[in-house]
C-alpha cells in the first residue's frame, strides 16, 4: 500500500487536539485539505497505483476527507463557543425557579372526594342534606324513639329555633348523616343508590379521638332484592379499593336502630400489627324506616352504611390527633 491510512488518522487526531484557535485551525485545514495538502497529494497519486489498489485508496481518501471536514466544523463551533462564554454575563441556573405555587386541598375534602368517587364508580349518586335537622328526621324517622336507650349514642346539639314542622320541638344539628336517608327516601322511589357526605355534630368533650364536629359519609342502596350478602360484597370492595389489597376485614354483629341485621366493620392489615380497627357501621335498612318514609310494606329491601371520615383518614395517614384537622396549621395543610 502506498499510503498508511492508520498512521494518517493518528496524525490527524493528534493535530486537531492541539488546535485552540481559529488561526491554528486554518493551518490545520491547509495542511490536510489545502491545494498542496495531504488529501490532494493522495488524489494525485491515484493514477500511479495498481488497478487493485486504486479503488481501495480512493475509498479511504474520501473517508479521510469527510472526517477532516467534520473535525474542522466541530472544532470551529467549540472555539467560537469558548470565546462567547468568556464574554457572557454571569448566570447560575441552579438558583431556585420562581413559580406560582398552587394551594392544597384539605385532606378531609380529599378523603371525602376519594370515598365518594369510589362509590360513584360503583353506581352511586352523591347527594347532600342540611346540617340543621328536625328531631323527626334525625331520630324518629330512623326508628330512634324519644326516651329510648338507643338514643344514648346520639347526644345532640339543639338550637334555639322551633321546628316549623312541630313547634313544640327545637331544631338540632344532625348527629349523623343518616337523616339524609330519610330525606332521599321521602323524595324518591327506589331503585336508589346514594352517598351522602357531610358534617355532623355531637356534644363530645374534645380530645385526641373526639371532636364535637366531624364528617360522615352515609350510603344507601334500596331496590327490590338487596340482600345481606350484598352488604358484605359492596363494603369489601370499597375497603380493598380504598385501603389497598393488603387489607383484612371482618363483619361483626352490632345494633343500630335503623338497620337489622346490623354490623360493624373492622379492618386490619395483613402485614401490620394484629389488631382490628373499627371503621364503619352498616346493616340492612330496618322495615320501620321504610314505613316511616311511606314505602309499601315488604316491597323493598335495602342496605345502609356510615363511616367517619376523620377516623378513616387518621388510620390511612397515621394521624394521631383528630384536632389537627380543624386547627388548619399551614404546615399540616401543605403536606397533602
Amino acid at each position: 500500500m502506498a499510503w498508511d491510512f492508520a498512521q494518517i488518522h493518528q496524525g490527524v487526531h493528534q493535530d486537531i487536539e492541539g488546535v485552540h484557535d481559529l488561526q491554528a485551525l486554518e493551518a490545520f485545514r491547509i495542511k490536510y485539505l489545502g491545494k498542496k495538502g495531504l488529501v490532494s497529494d493522495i488524489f494525485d497519486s491515484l493514477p500511479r497505483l495498481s488497478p487493485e489498489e486504486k479503488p481501495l485508496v480512493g475509498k479511504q481518501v474520501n473517508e479521510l476527507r469527510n472526517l477532516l471536514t467534520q473535525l474542522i466544523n466541530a472544532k470551529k463551533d467549540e472555539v467560537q463557543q469558548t470565546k462567547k462564554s468568556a464574554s457572557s454575563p454571569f448566570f447560575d441556573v441552579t438558583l431556585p425557579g420562581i413559580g406560582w405555587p398552587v394551594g392544597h386541598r384539605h385532606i378531609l375534602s380529599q378523603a371525602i372526594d376519594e370515598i365518594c368517587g369510589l362509590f360513584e364508580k360503583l353506581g352511586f349518586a352523591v347527594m347532600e342534606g342540611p346540617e340543621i335537622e328536625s328531631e323527626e328526621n334525625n331520630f324518629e324517622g330512623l326508628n330512634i324513639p324519644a326516651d329510648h336507650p338507643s338514643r344514648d349514642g346520639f347526644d345532640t346539639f339543639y338550637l334555639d329555633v322551633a321546628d316549623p314542622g312541630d313547634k313544640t320541638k327545637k331544631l338540632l344539628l344532625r348527629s349523623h348523616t343518616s337523616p339524609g336517608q330519610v330525606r332521599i327516601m321521602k323524595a324518591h322511589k327506589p331503585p336508589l343508590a346514594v352517598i351522602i357526605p357531610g358534617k355532623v355534630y355531637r356534644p363530645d368533650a374534645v380530645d385526641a379521638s373526639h371532636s364535637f364536629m366531624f364528617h360522615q359519609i352515609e350510603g344507601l342502596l334500596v331496590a327490590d332484592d338487596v340482600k345481606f350478602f350484598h352488604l358484605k360484597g359492596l363494603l369489601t370492595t370499597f375497603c380493598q379499593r380504598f385501603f389497598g389489597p393488603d387489607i383484612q376485614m371482618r363483619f361483626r354483629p352490632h345494633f343500630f336502630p335503623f338497620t337489622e341485621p346490623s354490623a360493624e366493620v373492622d379492618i386490619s392489615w395483613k402485614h401490620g400489627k394484629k389488631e382490628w380497627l373499627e371503621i364503619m357501621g352498616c346493616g340492612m335498612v330496618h322495615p320501620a324506616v321504610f314505613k316511616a318514609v311511606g314505602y309499601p310494606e315488604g316491597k323493598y329491601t335495602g342496605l345502609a352504611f356510615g363511616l367517619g371520615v376523620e377516623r378513616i383518614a387518621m388510620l390511612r395517614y397515621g394521624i394521631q390527633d383528630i384536632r389537627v384537622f380543624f386547627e388548619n396549621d399551614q404546615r399540616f395543610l401543605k403536606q397533602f
Partner: protein
Amino acid sequence: MKISLNWLKDYVAVGIPGKTLAHKFSMAGMEVERIYSVDGDMIFEIEVTPNRADCLSVLGIAREAAAILGKKKEFPPLSKIKWPSKKFPVTILDKEGCQQYIACVIEGVDMDKTPLWMTKRLKSIGVRSINNVVDIANFCLMETGQPLHAFDYDKLSGQKIIVRRAHAGETIVTIDNVERTLDPSILVIADARQAVAIAGIMGGKGTEVTAQTKNILLESAYFNPILIRRASRKLGLSSDSSYRFERGVDPGSVKTTAERAVMLILKNAGGLLVQAADVRVGKKHMEKPVISVSCEAINSFLGVQLTSAECQRIFTSLDFVVDKGDKGVWHVCPPSFRRDVVGQEDLMEEVARIIGYEEVPSRLPCISATNVAPDPRRQLRNQLKIQCQAQGFDEVVSYSMIHRSDLTKAKLDHLPSLRVVNPLSQDQEMMRPSLFPSLLKIVQMNMNHGEKDLKFFETGKIYMKEGERETLAMIMAGTRTQDWRKPQGGEEVDVYDLKGAFIESVGSIQHPQWVVEPQELPIFEPRQGAVIRDDDKHIGFLGKINQTILQQFGIKQPHVFYAELDLEAVYSTVQSPPPFASLSEYPAIVRDVSLAVPKSIFYQDVLNVIHRQHIPILSKVRFVEQYLGEKIAPDRRGIVISFIYQSSERTLTEQEVNTAHEGLVQTLARDCSAMIR
C-alpha cells in the same frame, strides 16, 4: 358490663379458653372490649348494645354462650318457696308506670356476713360487699338482670306500699345521702306517709337496711322503661337498677328472681317469709309476638344455604319456640327476655349472628340504575375549589360554632345568629353567621407559628334564622409569590390581588353577572371595602380588613384581605352550558385613551358610562394603568383605557372606528368630568 368467667362457668360448661370465648362473643354481637384478671378469675368487659337488655346479667350471657357454643345451660333450679297466705298491702296507683310489683316481708333476719363464695363473685365484677341482705339483692340482680330492693320493714310508715307519681316538690334523701326534689313525672314507691324510694332508680336513706334491721321488705317489680329513663335523666341519677329498667327487664323473671332472693335470704340470713304480694296490672308488657318466617326466606335474604334443621336448631338454642305451619312457614315465638325480637328482620339477624357473619358469602350488588340524580352543586364546588387552589389558596375546614365574643371582635354582632342551647363550652355557643371569625383565627394561629405568607379558602356553611347557606371565604396576607429577584423577596399583596384571585376562582363556575361596588363596611378599612351586588341583592363583600379587628384577633400584620360570597346565590344562577360567542375573523382596531378623572369617580362609573353607549363595534375595554402623581391635579387621577373595536361580520373602516371612538371619548369627558390627557 363486667362478666366473671368463673361465674359464667357455673351455668354453662364453656370448654374453651377464655380468650377464644371472648372472640366468639365479639363475633356474635357481644363485643368484649377488655379482658383482665382478678384473683385468678378472668373478667370480660362486654359492650351490651341497647337492644339486648337480656344480656345485662350472668344468666343472659350464659344463654348466649350456650347458643353460640351449642352447649347445655345448667341454670340454678327455680326456688320453690311457700308463699304465705297473708297478703301485704300494695297499691299501684300509676298503672302506666308499674305493671307488676312483688313485695315479700321477711321477719327476723340476722344481718350478718355474706357467704364468702358470694362476696367473691360480687367482688370479681367490682361490687362491694355491704351486708348479707343487700349483697343477696345485688347478687340476684347481677345473676338474673332483675333489680331488687330491700327496705327496712319497721321503718315503713303504715306498713304498706303505694306505687304512685311523686307530688310536686316532694323530696327524698336517697341512700347516697343526697336530698332530691321530685315532680309528678317521677314514679316513686311510697309508704303511708312519703316516698321511700325513687322507683327503679334508688332507694331512700330513711328505709335503708342497716346492721340493726330485723325485718325486711323485698321488692321485685316491672317499671315502665320510658318513665324510668326520663326520671333518671331528669335527676341526673342512674344506677345498676335504672340502667336495666330503662332497657326493659324480663317480665318473666320478676317473680322467679324474687323467689330466688327470698330463698337465699332465708338460707343465709334466716327469718320467715310472713307476708307477700304479687300485684299485676295490665298485660301488655307480657305479650309475646309470634313471627312467621320460612327457612327459604331466611336463606334468600341472607344469601346463605341453611337446611331447615339447622335453622330450627338455631332458634331452639336461643330458647325461641318454633311451631311448624303450612308450606314450610314457621311461627316463631321469642322468649319473654327477648323483647327486641319482634319482626322477621330480627330473626334474620339472630340466624346470621349465630352462624357467624363470616359464614355469609360476599357478593357485589348489581346496581342497574338509581332514581336520584347527583347533586350538581358538588361538581360546581369542586371546580371552584380547584380554581382557588390554582390561585395558590390552601383549603381549610373550621368549626361551624364560634364563641359569642368572636362576633363582637369581628364587628359582626349585628348579624342575627343561631344559638346552641346545650354547648359544652362557650366556644361552641354560636352558629357562625359568617366564615370571617374562623378564618381570622386560622390566620392568627399560623402567624404565631411564624408564617407570613398566607392564602386560605373555605367553602362552608353559615347559619341564620332562615337556615344554612353555603359560603366561600378567601383570606390572604403577605407576599404575592416568593420571588428572590424582587426586593424583600417578593411584593406584598393588596386588595387587587385578592379581588383577582376571587374573580378568577368564582368566574370558573359562573361568568359573573355581579358587580363589585364600593361601600364603607365596618369590617374593612376606609375606601378599601366593597360589596358584591347581583341586581339588587348583596351576595358578598371583599376588602382590606379593618385594623381594629386584626388587633382584636391578635394579628400583628396590618395588611390582610378578605372576601366572602354566598355560593347559594351563585349556584342558583349558574348557566350550563355557557353560551358560545363566535370568534371574529376580522382585524381588531385598538384605541388608547388617557384621561384625568376626578377622584370621586370610580372606574366602575367610567365603565357604566361606556356600557350605556351600547356601541356594537366596541368588543372589549381593557384597563391599562392608573397614575397618581405630581403631574396631575391633586383631586384627579390619570387612567389609561384601551378600547378594542372589532366586528364578527366585516373589516371595520378607519372612519367608523374614529367616529365611534371620538363620540365615546366626548361622552366620557362630559359624563365623568374627565379631561383627555
